[in-house]
C-alpha cells in the first residue's frame, strides 16, 4: 500500500478524534495509561490522578460510557481500545492480562502509550 493511502487512512482516523470532545479524548488516553496498572480505574482514582473532582470524573465516565468505553459492575473503567475484557487480541506488557479491541489497536498502542511491548 502506498504511503499516500496510509496518510489518507490516518487523516480519516484523526478526524474521528477531532469530532470528539477533547476532554473525552484526553481522558481516554489517561485512562488507558492508568489501566496499565492492571486494575479497573475507579472514578476516585481517575479524579485524583487528573486533579478533578469525583463529580467531574463521574461526568467524564458517563460520556465515555455513551462513547462506547467499557465499565465493570462497580462502575470502574475497564477498557477503550486497550481493555481488561478478553478479546481475540491479547496484549502483553509486563505480563498477560490485557487485550485490545482490534488488531490495529494492538499494533498502534505502544507508540501512543508508555508501553513498549506487545
Amino acid at each position, binding site marked *: *500500500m502506498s*504511503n499516500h*493511502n*496510509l*496518510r*489518507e*487512512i*490516518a*487523516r*480519516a*482516523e*484523526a*478526524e*474521528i*478524534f*477531532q*469530532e*470528539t470532545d*477533547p*476532554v473525552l*479524548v*484526553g*481522558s*481516554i*488516553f*489517561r485512562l*488507558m*495509561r492508568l489501566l496499565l496498572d492492571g486494575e479497573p480505574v475507579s472514578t476516585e482514582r481517575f479524579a*485524583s*490522578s*487528573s*486533579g*478533578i473532582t469525583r463529580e*467531574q470524573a463521574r461526568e*467524564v465516565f458517563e460520556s465515555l460510557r455513551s*462513547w*462506547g468505553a467499557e465499565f465493570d459492575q462497580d462502575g470502574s473503567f475497564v477498557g477503550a481500545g486497550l481493555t481488561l475484557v478478553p478479546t*481475540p*487480541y491479547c496484549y502483553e506488557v509486563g505480563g498477560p492480562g490485557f487485550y485490545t*479491541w*482490534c*488488531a*490495529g*489497536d*494492538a*499494533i*498502534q*498502542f*505502544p*507508540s*501512543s*502509550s*508508555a508501553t*513498549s*511491548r*506487545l
Partner: protein
Amino acid sequence: MSGESVRLTVGFEGVESFEPASAVVSSVSAGFNAENVRGSICQYGHFFVSPKTAREYTVRHPNVSLEILTPEGAFRIGQLVLEQEPLKSIAEVRDVDGQVRRDKGHATVTRYGTVGYDLRTVGRWSRFGYGLLIAAGATASTLARLGQTYDPAGFLLQTAIAFAGIVVAYLVVCWLLGERAFAHASPWLNTLILVGPALGVAYWNLTLGHALGFDLPAALTLAMLAYIGISLTDLTDRNLHRLRRL
C-alpha cells in the same frame, strides 16, 4: 480470523518482529463513525496469517471499505494519527526549557476556569494585574526604604542576593520534585507550594513575626514580593505551563 495465532513484538519506533512472516492486518479505510468507533472500525480490524486469508475476509464484506496492511503499515498509520491534532497536543508536552518532548500517551484533562489548570484569558490578565500590583508595591517599598536606610547600596545588594536565593530555592524544589510529580499532584497542593512560602515570608512581619518579636530581614520580604510579582506578570507560554504545574 482463521484461528491460527499471529504474534508481534512492537516497540516505540516500530514493529520489531512478527510471525508468521506473511501476517497482515485488515483496516477500515473509509466510513468511520466517531459515535461508534468499535462498531465502525474495530470490528473489521483483524490479524490474518496471510494476504490470501485476508482477501477472503474482505470479499465477505463487500460493503465495507477495507485495506489489507502489513504490520509496519498499520504501525505507520498510528504514527501519522499521532502527528495530527488533537492527539499531537496530547502526546506532546513542553518542558520547562521550552523543548517539545514526546510524552507517549500522556493526557491532561483541562477544564475551562478550573483553578490549577487553565483560567484562560481572564485568568491570564488577572494574574498579570495582580503581579503588576505586587511588583509595583515591592518596588515602591524598596525605594521608600532606600530613603530611610544609612546604606542604600548595601540594602539593594541584600535584596538582590535574597532575590537570587529565592530563585535558586524554587529551581531546586522543581528539580528535586520533578515536573511529573507536580503534574500528578493536586493543583491545590501545587498552588500551596508556590504561594505558601511566598506569602509566609512576605507577610510574616505583618502577622506572627510582629507578635513573636521575630522580624525577617526587610530585604528578604521585598525580594519575595518581587519574585511573586515578576512570576505572575510573565505571560509567556513557558511560564504559564510552569505555573499550571505549580
